[in-house]
């Protein structure tokens, strides 16, 4: 029988995703197949009903986009002599072939350490010192080492971990591992702030499934304009774009802003994350008397959304079961309601406005009836290198009016048990200004 060397998987975002025969062993492994049962957006489907897509297809999409970016930035016509000198890996054909395979596998595996329901409550549900990146590194090491060796050419497990996780998180896992300029660029292709394909894929995929238009941008054009450029101030190689890609790069950043402000940090989505996290803490306590997921690889891989959902419905229908109250709120869509939202005017009066309002409401209505959620968008100033029409390398920030005006998402919500909402709103209307002035920021000046 003829062996198929390449498989094609249909995907609504990327058309066909190509998987090589020897990559199938990794794709078919338990850590990857488990992602078919981990939703990309947690309980967002309680707000946007069609947001039911899974991390599995996202992982395939990231692999496809990472490959396209790799092929563009290493194409001989896109590499300058300066870059060839600083990064010898882009010159050598065998080396390019090896790293192309590394980035494909790293992209495919970058999310395998996610808990059920992805990010919801990750910080509190992993044991101290653990997060999904560390779990991903552990699973790659323990479960995929042998399949990686069987690839042609064989791939070093350390290289896959490095490129999948990136320098920021890896420092906490393997403090002695250093990144070369080349490895830094490769990991930026996946997890980078400006042009990371992880972000490109989730913005496109999430907006497609949710049914919103503002998460979309012309990623084909953006990828075609990506280049490795030497920083004109230091000669350090970085990922940048040709000037023709500037507007689409701006639209990617705008898409991110809109998706974060209107989808990912929508207050209803956030309160369901809180109910889910609180349920999980109580449910997990019944297993090992600690409210954390296990980091033993076998045990970890046995947890998926379906397992948790079954427990949620069980607990929702039985008031004696741990986590009943939060499970019921999820199952019956009876979430806590928004009672206060951060405002810049309040911050000018009190830099800790959200926290002091939260504490005041807790005092008045009791701790168990109030919840808080604060978030500040990570990532620095949105700047990157561009090469203009005169071949001059300049800062995108210096020529883009959009980048310099791009807002950041900073949210702060206080939620209340629905039965007290009306009364609490009236109480807050009357007392907010007094609370903000009297309750000073929590400071320790010495």
């Amino acid at each position, binding site marked *: 029988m003829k062996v198929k060397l390449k498989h094609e998987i249909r995907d609504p975002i990327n058309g066909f995703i190509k998987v090589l025969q020897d990559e199938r062993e990794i794709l078919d492994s338990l850590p990857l197949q488990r992602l078919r049962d981990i939703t990309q957006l947690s309980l967002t489907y309680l707000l946007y009903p069609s947001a039911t897509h899974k991390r599995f297809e996202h992982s395939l999409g990231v692999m496809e986009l990472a490959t396209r970016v790799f092929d563009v930035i290493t194409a001989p016509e896109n590499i300058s002599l300066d870059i060839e000198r600083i990064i010898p890996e882009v010159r050598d054909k065998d080396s390019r072939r090896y790293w192309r395979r590394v980035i494909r596998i790293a992209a495919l595996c970058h999310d395998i350490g996610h808990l059920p329901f992805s990010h919801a409550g990750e910080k509190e549900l992993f044991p101290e010192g653990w997060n999904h990146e560390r779990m991903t590194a552990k699973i790659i090491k323990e479960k995929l080492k042998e399949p990686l060796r069987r690839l042609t050419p064989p791939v070093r497990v350390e290289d896959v971990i490095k490129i999948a996780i990136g320098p920021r998180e890896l420092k906490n896992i393997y403090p002695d591992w250093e990144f070369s300029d080349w490895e830094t660029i490769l990991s930026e292709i996946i997890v980078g702030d400006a042009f990371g394909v992880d972000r490109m894929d989730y913005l496109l995929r999430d907006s497609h499934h949710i049914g919103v238009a503002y998460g979309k941008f012309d990623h084909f054009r953006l990828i075609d304009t990506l280049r490795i450029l030497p920083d004109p101030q230091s000669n*350090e190689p970085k990922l940048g774009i040709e000037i023709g890609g500037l507007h689409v790069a701006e639209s990617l950043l705008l898409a991110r802003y809109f998706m974060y402000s209107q989808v990912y940090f929508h207050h209803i989505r956030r309160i369901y994350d809180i109910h889910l996290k609180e349920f999980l803490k109580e449910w997990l306590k019944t297993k090992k008397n600690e409210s954390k997921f296990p980091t033993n690889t076998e045990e970890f891989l046995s947890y998926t959304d379906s397992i948790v959902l079954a427990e949620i419905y069980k607990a929702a229908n039985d008031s004696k079961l741990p986590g009943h109250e939060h499970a019921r709120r999820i199952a019956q869509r009876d979430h806590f309601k928004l009672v206060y939202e951060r405002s810049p005017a309040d911050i000018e009066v009190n830099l800790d406005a959200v926290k002091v309002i939260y504490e005041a409401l807790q005092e008045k209505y009791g701790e168990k009836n109030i919840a808080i959620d604060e978030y500040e968008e990570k990532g620095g*100033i949105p700047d990157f290198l561009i090469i203009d029409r005169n071949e001059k390398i300049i800062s995108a920030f*210096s020529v883009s009016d959009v980048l310099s005006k791009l807002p950041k998402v900073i949210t702060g919500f206080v939620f209340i048990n629905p039965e007290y909402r009306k009364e609490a709103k009236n109480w807050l209307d009357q007392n907010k200004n007094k609370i903000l002035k009297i309750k000073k*920021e929590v400071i320790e*000046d010495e």
Partner: protein
Amino acid sequence: MNKLKRYAITISVIENLDKSGSWCGETHIQKAIYFLKKLFPEVIDYSFILYKHGPFSFDLRDDIGIMAAGGFLKIVPMFPYGPRILPGKLADKVKGLFPKTLEKCKEKIEFVTHKFKDKWVADLEALATGLYITTELMPSGSVEKRAEKLCQLKPHIPFWKAKEAVKEVDKIIEEAKKLTI
């Protein structure tokens, strides 16, 4: 360390860099705070890794972005390089919460920012990577060995520049000791 206290110290570093005539871009702030952390660890504690232009703190990068969005800093575009970062409209409010803290570290902040007043990105990269090698990788290495390591980590930096940077790092460490006693 409390978030607002971290902001107050960072703003004070930025103010001093600006006063001393520095370009005050993100790299200047990153490297000044790295020097502050290594020379005077009691002042500020961001976590750094070897990344863009040498030691780099993702947490500091996040804080700069958040401070700019919150009005504590303002970002001024400058052609053709990256933007300048300067104190924003709420800078004095957050600094006003920590008068004792800022007075206590004033001299140390001034020491570091004064050293950086006329440095450009390429100088800062060599210098900060030199400090990283000296304090974290090869504390007893000779100037030549450390310069070789610097060129290995940052292949775009020439050896002569690496050697100058390592010598300057040794000098700064010696001078800083006078302030720590």
